[in-house]
Structures are given as structure tokens and as C-alpha cells.
């Protein structure tokens, strides 16, 4: 599955796209923390299919997933 990274998180990861395999959001969170230095200390949200998602859920691999640092628009 393709994970989109933005802003300071893309900067930390050194890339704006990651390829990962995770059966659930919970599992994905653990992999992201292992992969992106300093992520655990950052404020961020995960969007599944363009909606910020907090509760754990199963992932099929067809979702559009993004890791979002704090918003700064406006």
C-alpha cells in the first residue's frame, strides 16, 4: 500500500511516498513509527481515503493513506 507523507513528516522520512503492507491502522502506526525518525514525538494524523481516522480499522490495501503533520493553512 502507498502511504503519502506531507510537510515536516515527508521531510523527516526523506520521501513523500512510502510503500508498506499493514493489515490494520494499528499495525500501520507501528510500522510508521519504526520507519520515520522522530514521528513518535510529533503531532500528526492519519487520513484514510481523505478523512482523518483515529479508531483502529482493517486495511485492504486499496485505501489512500496519508500521514499529516499539523495544518497551517489560512
Amino acid at each position: 500500500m502507498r502511504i503519502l507523507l506531507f510537510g515536516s513528516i515527508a521531510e523527516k522520512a526523506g520521501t513523500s511516498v512510502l510503500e508498506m503492507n499493514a493489515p490494520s491502522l494499528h499495525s500501520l502506526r507501528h510500522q510508521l513509527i519504526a520507519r520515520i525518525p522522530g514521528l513518535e514525538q510529533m503531532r500528526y494524523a492519519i487520513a484514510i481515503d481523505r478523512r482523518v481516522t483515529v479508531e483502529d480499522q482493517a486495511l485492504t490495501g486499496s485505501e489512500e493513506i496519508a500521514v499529516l503533520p499539523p495544518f497551517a493553512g489560512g
Partner: protein
Amino acid sequence: MSSSGPHKVKDIFVEGAIDPAFIATSIAKHASRTDIGAHEIFLGQVRADTVDGTAVVAIEYTAYREMALEAMTRIREEAFEKWPAITCLHVHHGLGLIPTGALCFMVFASAPHRKAAREAVAWIVDRIKADLPIFGREILSDSTHLWKTNQ
């Protein structure tokens, strides 16, 4: 007005700063809508904040465009539900490098009377700041940078 109606997904992003002349053109286009009595416009301008004595010289904005436009479509639909009197709503946000003193953001609502336009703009500005995945890299005068965070 091409901008009426809440339903279509519309692009709000422009490359670079918002030109005051563009705002004038946008205002002038409403002259044919003689049911309008009130326009309310909010503009965001890039501030030269100082961070530990070093000044911000520009903000580089990026966005998760698809999610931002979907969130904006929902905000727009909710705004037209909450304030049915609104006749027109225009939202623009700059992307890329925007220097201090330049305009990065515009929310422009029109209505027959001021209350709806005023309330809608205040609500929409707050919602956009909270809900749209837009990211800002503050470029400092010493070439370092900082990531901007709303609130």
C-alpha cells in the same frame, strides 16, 4: 456568477500569492448581482514573525490537494446550509513560496444583508484553518526553516 452553488468540487489553490488586482476583479464581477447588499472578505497575509531573533521572510505552502478540496466541498455545503442567504462564496489559497507582506488566503462571501456574509466568512475561515491539510514551511532570513502550526 460562476461561483454560486455549493455542490461542485472547485479548486481553491493558486500558484504563489493572491494578487490584489484579482480580488478587485472578483469584487467587480458581483455588480450584476443586484440582490447582493453585503460583501465580507477575509484576507490572510504572510507575517514577518521573528523566531529567536530571526525573521520569517516567506512561507512555502504545500497541500494534500485532493483531501483539501474534499474538505472544502463539505465546508462549502455546510456553509450554504447554515446561511442559505449567501449568494456567492469564493475561496482561494496560495501554494508555493509566498513572501512576507503578500496575500496567501482569501475567503469572500456575499449576501443580501451583512449578518449572513459576516458569520459565514468567520466560520469558513476557522473551518479551513482547522480542517484543510495545508502545510507551511516558514523560511527564515538565515535560510533555516520552521514548520508552521495553526493555533
